[in-house]
């Protein structure tokens, strides 16, 4: 093996990543060649000096930061149960209220309709009665009023005829009738 061949293989030799024959060949060459030995020493020392770059201890806040950014499992599990339950409950309430409202509306509508029908019935009945009664009432009131007026003896009369009480009553009656 010549120097160029050996120096090409030095990184692999450093890893012992050569087959037995090549390992032995490089070994033999390094024993006799100062230049290649120096090359190999340079490679080894460079790789070793890299150990100076030590690990850095992560800052304390990083652990807290990571743990703080984790989703809260307990809360999530609780919500996973509670949210569907709450949603289901609200749906049931909603449906119940809807049907209750519908039924109430229907009942209310029916009641209203019945009341209207009832009132129509009453109205129909009452109209005739009222008309009839009104006439009676008017007549009765008229005669009551008349009676009352007849009893009043101090109605102001424009022309009070002469001739005493009888004449005054007659004249009042005449005026009312007029």
């Amino acid at each position: 093996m010549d120097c160029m061949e050996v120096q090409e293989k030095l990184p692999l030799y450093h890893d012992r990543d050569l087959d037995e024959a090549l390992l032995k060949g490089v070994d033999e060459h390094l024993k006799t060649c100062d230049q290649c030995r120096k090359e190999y020493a340079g490679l080894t020392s460079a790789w070793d000096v890299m150990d100076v770059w030590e690990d850095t201890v992560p800052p304390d806040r990083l652990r807290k930061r990571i743990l703080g950014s984790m989703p809260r499992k307990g809360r999530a599990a609780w919500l996973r149960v509670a949210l569907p339950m709450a949603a289901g409950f609200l749906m049931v309430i909603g449906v119940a209220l809807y049907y209750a409202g519908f039924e109430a509306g229907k009942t209310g509508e029916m009641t209203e309709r019945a009341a209207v029908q009832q009132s129509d019935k009453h109205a129909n009945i009452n109209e005739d009665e009222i008309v009839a009664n009104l006439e009676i009432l008017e007549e009765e009131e008229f005669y009551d009023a008349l009676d009352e007026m007849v009893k009043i003896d101090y109605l102001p009369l424009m022309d009070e005829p002469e001739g005493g009480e009888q004449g005054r009553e007659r004249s009042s009656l005449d005026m009312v009738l007029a």
Partner: protein
Amino acid sequence: MEETDIALMALIKQGDSKAFELLLARHQRPVYNLALRFLNDPDEAEDITQDTFIRVYRAAQTYTPDAKFTTWLYTIVRNLCFNVLRSRKSAEMVSVDDEVMPELPSRGEDAVELLSKAQVTETVIRAVNRLPENMRMAVILSKYHGLQYEEIADIMGCTVNAIKLRVHRAKAILAKELHGLRHET
């Protein structure tokens, strides 16, 4: 007895918040450091760590242990990191070809510098950050997370040979970049 990650995921699925806290305690640091090394931005690393664990928590309901838990976890981190890079690129309107090798200045064969640990660390960070994205992710997972190439291939969604090639090329680049670098002990 310590619960496995897969057992903890099963407990998280049942709503066990303590199991999540345990999983977070176990993996927060590697997740944060993977994002930090890859993006070199502490704020973005924090955001990615948070996003990763939120995804883990949410995925617990559907999680099936097809692969190692860390493979699955780091795949989430890797995807989030690349999303950040994409948004950075679109914000900067800069196109970066992942396969184009950066020009790396050689430090000279015999230049041995004795620097402070902080200076060496800074040089290493710069050298790693100059690697192309896929190569950088493979190197970080291999070097700092001790993952096997097979697992890295699963995380990166490519073949084992592609990962080997990336890591080997990275080693050659870093050897030139960090040659002779020493720090005071």
